[in-house]
Each structure stands twice: as structure tokens, then as C-alpha cells.
């Protein structure tokens, strides 16, 4: 668990003051100090001591990553899929121009920003061991956003589930709507902070995008662009709302301001 003590202040007997930046010292002088014999000696001894003290944690992360990659390789070989098709980006596999899917990729970037913010806030509150209501709010927000983002990225609702499991796309929207209704009702007091309208706008844009996709897209010029544009604005607003909410939570201002 992360706490104040874990932030390495103790220096473990190593004189880190050697690297203290003096207001008058230039960048070059600072570089010289780092590259001096004493500087290098300090860096190596510090590297070694932190490596030993964090060995368990680092090994867990590295082993976890490589187990994942190894599993991907094994699955690819079993299913007779070219492993590089899984690891390369679309552009590399299909030899596309870099602009293809530009907005979609940016959307993924922004989805991921809100996913990160929610999980980050949850992790922070967990370490503080405070107010389980708020902690759960960020946990649920993180889960919902992660599911929607992963769905958007891997097209679960568009291709995988309808094509492979025969479940129609509309059932996804129904499940999402019901989940969001429950989420909003349960956490209405936390959601109604000073940026609440941004959340409502985000919902509106995402809902209009879905309705546009279902009923209008094929009948108007630039239909695809308009639909994806509406979705993009919705995702951005969703992200912005959580940025502001997490910021307020961490600074611990009273979230509801009437």
C-alpha cells in the first residue's frame, strides 16, 4: 500500500543533497555534478538499494506483463493467427494512411483518460481509507467507463457479440441505459456537483449519436461524420466531467455546492 512513508524521503543513508539544485547553478553545472564520479557513485548505490527494496513489486509487474504476452502468443499459435497481426497497429497490418480512423483513435485516447481518472481516484481514496460511499462511486464509474471504452475499442456491440453470439446490438444499448439509470439514481448526490450539467450534456450527445446511428445516418450527407462527431463530443464531455470531479475529490472541497 502506498503511503507517505513509501515516498522515499529517508534517502537510506545516501547523500541525495548532492543533487540539490542551486538557484544560481546552470543546467550545464547541474549536468556536471550528476556526471561527476561522486554523482555516478551515488546514483548506482541508490539504484541498487531501491532495486533491492522494490524487487518483489517490480518482479510482479514484469512477470505479469510477460505472462500476458506469452498467453497472447500461445493463443495466436493455437488459433493459427499471425502473432504480428495482434501486436501491430492497423496502419501497419493494412498499410493504411496514418489519418485513417484519426477521430476514432483520439476517442479511445479520451475514453482511456476518464477510465484512468476514475481508477486513480478510487485508488487514492482506498489508500486514505475514507468514505466508502465515494470510494465505491469511483469504483463503479471506473468499471462502467472501462466496459464502454473496451467495447468501443474492440467493437463488442458492433461485431463480436452480434456476429459470434447472435445477440442483437440493441440489447447492448438497453443494458447500458439500465446500468446508467441505476448508477445515476444510486449516486445522484455525488454526481450533482458543480459540473453536473457537463455530465448531462455528455449523456445527451452520446444518446443523440446512438439515435442518429439507428435512424438518420444513412439518409443525410456526412451521416457517418456527424454520428462519430456527436459521439466524440460526448466522450470528451464525459472525460472532462470526471477530470473536474476527481480534481475536486482529491482537493476535498465539498463536492455539492449549492
Amino acid at each position: 500500500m502506498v503511503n507517505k512513508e513509501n515516498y522515499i524521503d529517508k534517502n537510506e543513508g545516501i547523500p541525495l543533497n548532492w543533487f540539490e539544485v542551486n538557484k544560481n547553478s546552470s543546467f550545464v553545472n547541474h549536468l556536471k555534478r550528476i556526471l561527476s564520479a561522486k554523482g555516478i557513485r551515488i546514483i548506482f548505490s541508490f539504484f541498487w538499494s531501491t532495486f533491492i527494496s522494490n524487487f518483489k513489486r517490480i518482479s510482479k509487474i514484469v512477470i505479469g506483463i510477460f505472462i500476458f504476452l506469452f498467453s497472447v502468443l500461445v493463443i495466436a499459435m493455437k488459433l493459427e493467427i499471425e502473432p504480428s497481426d495482434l501486436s501491430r497497429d492497423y496502419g501497419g497490418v493494412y498499410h493504411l494512411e496514418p489519418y485513417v480512423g484519426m477521430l476514432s483513435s483520439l476517442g479511445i485516447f479520451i475514453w482511456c483518460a476518464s477510465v484512468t481518472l476514475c481508477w486513480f481516484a478510487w485508488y487514492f481514496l482506498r489508500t486514505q481509507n475514507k468514505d466508502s460511499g465515494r470510494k465505491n462511486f469511483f469504483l463503479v464509474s471506473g468499471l462502467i467507463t472501462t466496459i464502454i471504452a473496451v467495447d468501443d475499442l474492440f467493437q463488442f456491440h458492433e461485431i463480436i457479440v452480434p456476429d459470434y453470439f447472435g445477440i442483437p446490438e440493441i440489447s447492448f444499448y438497453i443494458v447500458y441505459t439500465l446500468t446508467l439509470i441505476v448508477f445515476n439514481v444510486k449516486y445522484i448526490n455525488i454526481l450533482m456537483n458543480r459540473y453536473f450539467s457537463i455530465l448531462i450534456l455528455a449523456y445527451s450527445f452520446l444518446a443523440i449519436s446512438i439515435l442518429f446511428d439507428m435512424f438518420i445516418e444513412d439518409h443525410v450527407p456526412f451521416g457517418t461524420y456527424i454520428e462519430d462527431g456527436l459521439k466524440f463530443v460526448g466522450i470528451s464531455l464525459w472525460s472532462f466531467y470526471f477530470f473536474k470531479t476527481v480534481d475536486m475529490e482529491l482537493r476535498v472541497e465539498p463536492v455539492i455546492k449549492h
Partner: protein
Amino acid sequence: MILEILQLSIQRIKKNYRAYLLGLGIPSFILYLTYTIGKLKGIELGDLTRDPNTILKGHVYTGMISNAGIFFWSASATICLFTAVFLRIMKADLQKVMLMAFAGLLSFILGFDDVFQMHEKMFSDIRYVPEELFFLAYFLCVVFIVIVCFKTFLQTDFVLWTLALLMFLISLVIDHELITVNSDHAFWEDSFKFAGIVLWMFYYLRTSMNFILYESKKVGEYGK
């Protein structure tokens, strides 16, 4: 109840109109830019907005690890930029703010480069820029950040960060065929890159969390 919520919403919009302008303005600007680029270059607008796999009706698994990599790049950029803003508001040590702000920007650029293949293709229409020049620029940025914030950097779990760079280096070495991999050359190159991105994200997650906890405890429980 609904009327009350509506009134409250209007009140909030009036009070925080700048945030609303920003929240709506940035995506609108990006959309406008996309539209203009599409029109100027004569590109089908749907090609710019749709997911590439939908356009090409490819396999859903194509680019799986690359996509997961984008997720982690974005996570690193978000964590670092958010922490930089937070620390600045909390009037934290300037070196911490700088470390996080630089790292956030660099993660964003690296992620952007990864998504749009900036170092491989993006500028080839305008002017050829050798790939090595990009790598050199990134390396110099990293060195600059570390030197400027060296003392703060040493106080973090920088071993994770070093491992991330090592993974990137191995990926580059495989890419440039300095090490011969018998089969699945691209897979190994991308795998090491992915490992690097995940380690990079973990390093900044831990560092940010420690900085924020440190600051929030320094000013007292619950920031009061």
C-alpha cells in the same frame, strides 16, 4: 424534482461558463479540424472518423496489443498531467510539478506518435524526416527532464522507469535487426514496446500517487 435539477444546471452553467466553453470548445475544434483536413485533402470523412477495422471489415483481434498500448499511453499522459495540475494548485515543490508536466506531455506525444505513426509515415508527404531523428529527439527530452528534476527523480521508484526504457531499447534493437529473432520479428518488437509502455505507466502511477498523498498529508487530513 426535474425542474429543480434544471434550475440548478442553469445556475451552474452561469457560474462555471468557462469550464463549459472549454469542455465543448476543444472537441468542437478537433471536429472542425478533421472536417477541414478531410475536405482539403479530398478524403472521405467517414475514413477519418470510423474505426479502421470497421472500414476494412477486418478481424476484431487485429492490432489488439497495439490498442492496449494506446490505452496505457493515454493512462500515463492523464495521470501525469492531472497530477501536475493538482500539485500546482496545492503549491507543491516546483520540481515535482515540472517532472509531472514534462512526463505528461512526453507521454502524450509518444502516444500520439504511436497512434498516428508520426515517426514512420505522418510527415512523409510533406518532408521526409528520418526515424532516427525522432528517437534522438525523444531521448534528449527524456535526458532533459531527468537532469532538470534529478533530485526529485531519485526520490521515486526510478528502477521501474529504467526498466521501461530498457524494454523500449530492446524493442528498437529488434526493430533495427541488431538482434536476429528467428520468427515473429514484429511480435517480439511490439511485445517489448508494450512491456515498456506498461512499466512506464506503472512508474508514473506510483510516483503520482505518492506525490499526491504526500501533499495531501502535508496540508493536513482532507486538505484542510
